[in-house]
């Protein structure tokens, strides 16, 4: 299956090589795409070499998970949409029919026309182009924020869960205090204070919901700490650091992946919310939230200005949630949304 994706990537690379050098934006995204394809190729090599080494019918825990996941149709649908969205996000400059920033004075706030498939906004900018770029921004920030969030949540959760006692108390009390500040006001205040650049947005969004993440990982690591194979490792004299790395973390991986996937959806909703309030991504850079806020003013004339960004947010979040649910059942961890 990985081979088909690999071939598809190479075809795309050749297809776009012509337009690659038009401007910095295209070069950067082309570079990232190339890097990803090479990475995929290396992974494919490693996987096939390892499979030849073992007899064919040995099933690792990941094979088991993949087999269960493949049976869940909605999760597969979610996965394919997520993959498609990644392609759109990375190759945005190549896919865009027209420059999202140029204003076509002749066609202001129109519905779908031949020139603009999804119509234009009040300043004549093409909605489809802006949506593609906005998806790129949303996905980029969303993934980055979730990675930060997961790292923070996991490490705090592991420390609190594994070491217990005072460290556990301190970390959990702090997180409870942190969680009791109404998030949205905190985000707004921080954005107003630090200025609403992309970096601040990622920072703020990644600081939310740490309590939930840490609490689940803490629960899991407490359970794992009592497992007999951890006791066996301790009796062998293996130091705590190595136990955490070789025994606790690999078995915490399943809940972390599920939590991260489910949180991507939530993070994208939060980013859209902030942009809706005019705080997240600042114009002229396109963002789904601000497009939707804009669309509300023109509800009576051109409904497409609200429907398109809204349904794109819905599509992204739905895809991630479906995929996350599928992963949760396949890895049968008991995290409830």
């Amino acid at each position, binding site marked *: 299956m990985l081979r088909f994706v690999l071939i598809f990537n190479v075809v795309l690379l050749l297809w776009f090589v012509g337009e690659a050098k038009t401007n910095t934006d295209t070069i950067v995204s082309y570079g990232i795409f190339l890097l990803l394809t090479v990475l995929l190729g290396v992974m494919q090599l490693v996987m096939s070499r390892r499979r030849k080494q073992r007899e064919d019918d040995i099933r690792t825990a990941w094979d088991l998970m993949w087999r269960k996941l493949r049976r869940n149709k909605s999760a597969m649908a979610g996965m394919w949409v997520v993959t498609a969205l990644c392609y759109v996000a990375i190759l945005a400059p190549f896919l865009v029919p027209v420059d999202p920033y140029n204003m076509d004075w002749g066609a202001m706030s129109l519905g779908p026309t031949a020139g603009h498939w999804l119509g234009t906004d009040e300043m004549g900018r093409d909605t489809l182009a802006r949506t593609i770029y906005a998806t790129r921004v949303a996905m980029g920030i969303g993934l980055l924020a979730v990675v930060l969030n997961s790292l923070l949540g996991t490490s705090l959760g592991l420390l609190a869960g594994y070491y217990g006692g005072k460290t556990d108390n301190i970390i959990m009390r702090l997180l409870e*205090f942190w*969680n*009791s*500040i*109404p*998030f*949205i*006001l*905190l985000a*707004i*205040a*921080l954005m*107003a*204070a*630090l200025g609403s650049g992309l970096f601040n947005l990622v920072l703020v969004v990644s600081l939310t919901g740490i309590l*939930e993440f840490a609490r689940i990982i803490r629960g899991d690591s407490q359970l794992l700490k009592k497992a007999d194979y951890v006791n066996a490792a301790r009796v062998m004299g293996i130091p705590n650091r190595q136990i955490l790395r070789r025994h606790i973390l690999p078995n915490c991986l399943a809940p972390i992946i599920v939590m991260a996937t489910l949180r991507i*959806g939530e993070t994208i*909703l*939060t980013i*859209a*919310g902030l942009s*809706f*309030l005019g705080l997240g991504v600042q114009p002229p850079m396109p963002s789904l939230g601000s497009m*939707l*806020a804009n*669309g*509300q003013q023109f*509800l*009576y004339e051109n*409904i497409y200005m*609200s429907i398109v960004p*809204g*349904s794109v*947010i*819905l599509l992204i*979040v*739905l895809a991630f*949630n*479906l995929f996350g*649910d599928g992963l949760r059942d396949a890895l049968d961890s008991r995290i*409830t*949304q």
Partner: protein
Amino acid sequence: MLNYAIRRLLLLIPLLIFVSLFVFAILKLTPGDPATALLGDQATEEAIALARAKYALDEPLPVQYVHMMANFFNGDLQSIFHKDNVLSVVLHRLPATLELGLLSLLIAVIVSIPVGIISAVKRNSFFDYASMSMAMFGVSIPVFFTGILLIYLFAVILKWLPASGYGGHFWTIEGLRHMILPALSLSFVLMASTTRLTRSAMLEVIHQDYIRTARAKGVSRFMVVMFHAFKNALIPIATNIGNQVARMFAGAVLTETVFAWPGVGRLAVNAIFRRDEPLVFGCVLLMAVVYVVINLLVDLLYGFLNPQISYD
């Protein structure tokens, strides 16, 4: 039970100090100066100096902090923008937010718990798939997008309900008409996640041994679900609703912005934009208090439902 509640309320004080210090730090960190924001750029030098003196913006930070905290509690912390003391401005707006929040919580709970139970009992039936896909839909849709869609449908096309604005308390007809759309859009998210949780909590409980014991006693399937299973499933459901309340605050702010609803959330957002520091201070503190009180109520409810919890 009582001294547990009192102890939890005492915990509120360190929390308030933590929150207020944090918010105060952020506000002071923001570049620019509230006075110029109020009077605009052309204002003369002395007017700005006067305003700064009036709102004690020149004293050293710790003094300002203590000054602000003292004024907030004895009610005469002046809002820069609203020319009135912060406490009354916020309390004036509080009912709108609380009514909206409670109504949407009510709608969500009334709809989602029965739907969750039925889809757990009739697992993998058509009803189960339908309700679960609706719930998945509800969790993924942004609150403000549902708001805009509802406005478009009911206000723009059908013109049954007003597009925005507050028409009085919800027990008045006019008030209710205004409140239906925002309450519906806010409750849609809560409804979705509570349905999913009710279903998984019920499924978890239905496979327990004591359910099998109950059936072995000859209890009918309906009674086993409604009496034995549901009473146990209520514990995780109540805990989740408590967590959802935190999420509702974010949703409330967004819904109030979509429907131009005169609530505390929107007040705070505008206050931040207008650099009205005392007002921001007041709003955040108040919302933190409301949040902690709600959490305490959920914990007490949790203790009431689960006999194994003892209030030592």
